[in-house]
């Protein structure tokens, strides 16, 4: 039976094919559809396995842990929603919650507007274009620790801190920056914005480059000014890029950790917890207090926040028909 089928196939393809031939083979016995599926799943198997073991399993484990009182020493015991109740009654959590959203709500728009403005103008610069672009990208390649330390040094009081030096020259009184509970969060945020800027600029520039130049030419012929072109053509066409960066940058700010940790090493999240984001609180709960169950509950809350914010943004910025 199989032999007859093989002959049929061979006659259909007189030039023969590697999988055909008189000896046949497993592959020739399977239908095109099956063979394709085998290939697809063959390639997908490794990443799926990887994700299951490295990502999904720990995630589910965290969900489970959040309902226990595990503290590394005693075996975990289920405690129901106790961790969550404790968390929502904890004033420190609400403070951290507020800090995290301040990073998000102030940081994301500022960084995106800044990145867009730089990308928009850099796109027109021909002189040393690649060099300038590389300069902007450099912070993105630098380790957060090194960068944070340099910025700490910038923020020092005079004569060490360069920013205060400049302020002094301009006749403005010196500022405490990361030493003040009022200014510390924004000082850290500036560093974080600066660190992410290069990446956002590159993405925005790629988006700008993808807009065909005839769109601009047609608009110029129709008599639009620069501002109208920006509003009516560039921004709408750049929307997919913007959506991506809004979500990406929001997630970045919601998960902010290393900038804060490295700029406030003496009292992480200080002064007075004024810079502490959620991730730092999780870190401290887990690795200073060893309250693993409690930390897991905080992680789950962060997970939910990230998901809600991302989905909300995607929903608000979706393509309207």
């Amino acid at each position, binding site marked *: 039976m199989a032999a007859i089928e093989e002959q049929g196939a061979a006659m259909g393809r007189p030039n023969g094919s590697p999988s055909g031939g008189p000896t046949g083979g497993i592959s020739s016995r399977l239908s095109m559809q099956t063979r394709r599926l085998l290939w697809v799943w063959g390639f997908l198997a490794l990443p799926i396995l990887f994700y299951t073991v490295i990502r999904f399993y720990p995630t589910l484990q965290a969900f489970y842990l959040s309902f226990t009182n595990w503290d590394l020493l005693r075996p975990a015991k289920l405690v129901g929603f106790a961790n969550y109740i404790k968390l929502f009654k904890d004033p420190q959590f609400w403070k951290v919650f507020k800090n995290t959203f301040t990073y998000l709500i102030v940081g994301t728009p500022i960084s995106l507007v800044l990145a867009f403005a730089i990308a928009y103008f850099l796109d027109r610069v021909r002189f040393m274009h690649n060099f300038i672009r590389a300069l902007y990208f450099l912070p993105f390649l630098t380790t957060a620790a090194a960068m944070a330390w340099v910025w700490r040094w910038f923020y020092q009081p005079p004569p060490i801190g360069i920013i205060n030096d400049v302020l002094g020259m301009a006749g403005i009184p010196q500022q405490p920056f990361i030493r003040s509970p009022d200014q510390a969060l924004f000082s850290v945020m500036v560093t974080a914005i600066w660190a992410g800027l290069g990446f956002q600029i590159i993405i925005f520039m790629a988006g700008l480059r993808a807009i065909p130049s005839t769109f601009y*030419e*047609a*608009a*110029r*012929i*129709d*008599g639009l000014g620069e501002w109208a072109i920006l509003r009516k053509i560039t921004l709408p066409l750049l929307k997919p890029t913007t959506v991506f960066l809004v979500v990406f940058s929001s997630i970045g700010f919601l998960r902010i950790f290393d900038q804060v940790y490295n700029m406030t090493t003496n009292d992480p999240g200080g002064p007075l917890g004024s810079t502490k984001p959620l991730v730092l609180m999780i870190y401290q709960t887990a690795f200073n207090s060893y309250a693993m169950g409690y930390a897991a509950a905080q992680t789950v809350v962060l997970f939910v926040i990230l998901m809600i914010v991302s989905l909300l943004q995607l929903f608000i910025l979706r393509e309207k028909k």
Partner: protein
Amino acid sequence: MATIELEKLVKRYGKVEAVKGIDLSIADGEFVVFVGPSGCGKSTTLRMIAGLEEISAGTLKIGPDVVNERDPKQRNIAMVFQNYAIYPHMTVRQNIGFGLYTSKLSKQEKDKRIEEAGKILGLDDFLDRRPAALSGGQRQRVAIGRAMVRDPSAFLFDEPLSNLDAQLRAQMRIEIKRLHQRLKTTTVYVTHDQVEAMTMADRIVVMKDGHILQVGTPSELYESPVDVFTARFIGSPSMNLIGGKRSNTGVEAASGGDILIGIRPHDLAANPPAQGDGIRLTGTVTAVEPLGPETLVHLDVDGTPVIATARDKSVPAVGSQLTCSAPSGSLYLFDARTEAFLGRS
């Protein structure tokens, strides 16, 4: 509506001269087509007229005014691009209305114009669609609509039909032509399709290497091309060229002669009657292309490829010997050295 005058117009890109000083005056309401091989400077010239490219030297007048230094919007021209340049994030109505962005008309007036343009172009049913839901021909019509609503002093087209298939191209050709007859707006149209040039133009401008070779009506260019280049560029399939020399009866084919004889494939009939004046060629058939009413026969005449036309139904066999002839009066003579046109024979 306006005249357009180009005087010694030059475009330099760094050291490269893309347009090398061209003179042309386009009358009010005229339909002028620029043709020429790729890279000859057609688009550059058009873009200088539009104001998208700076003019390196020379003057450009639209109407009575020199407009060298004016922005595109002050020139009041409308342009249609090869890739349409219609905006994917706007509906057809918004795209067409975009042409009126700076106009001071009232909202109703604008809407009326958009509806009107939509009707003329057969887009009435699509006004609220996005470009993604349109065919190529419909998209190009939207682009034309955007140009139309403006009431510009001139229309500029840069290869507007080259992304369309042959059938649609033929249809759009007629539509653009009809539109011009209706609006009578001065039009400059760039193409490298000589059929478009022949069928649409009031006058054709043949360009090569940044120069204008010849300006004339389609029949002028067809009947008396200035040189071999124009002669071969206009007419399809291209004119046959064979070496020849003058004889006491007229001209005859000869290798190493001092003239080139041009014969349009259309005039070179296969299987001619035994006698008649003019020129006779004999060669080996290398290929045949039956077109229905006639058949193009590719011949090899002493190493020169020649295309002849067989009008009877019998298709000559490939490899056979075939004689063909062109009547006197249909021949074009060129100087073999300078390739300049010498006259008809």
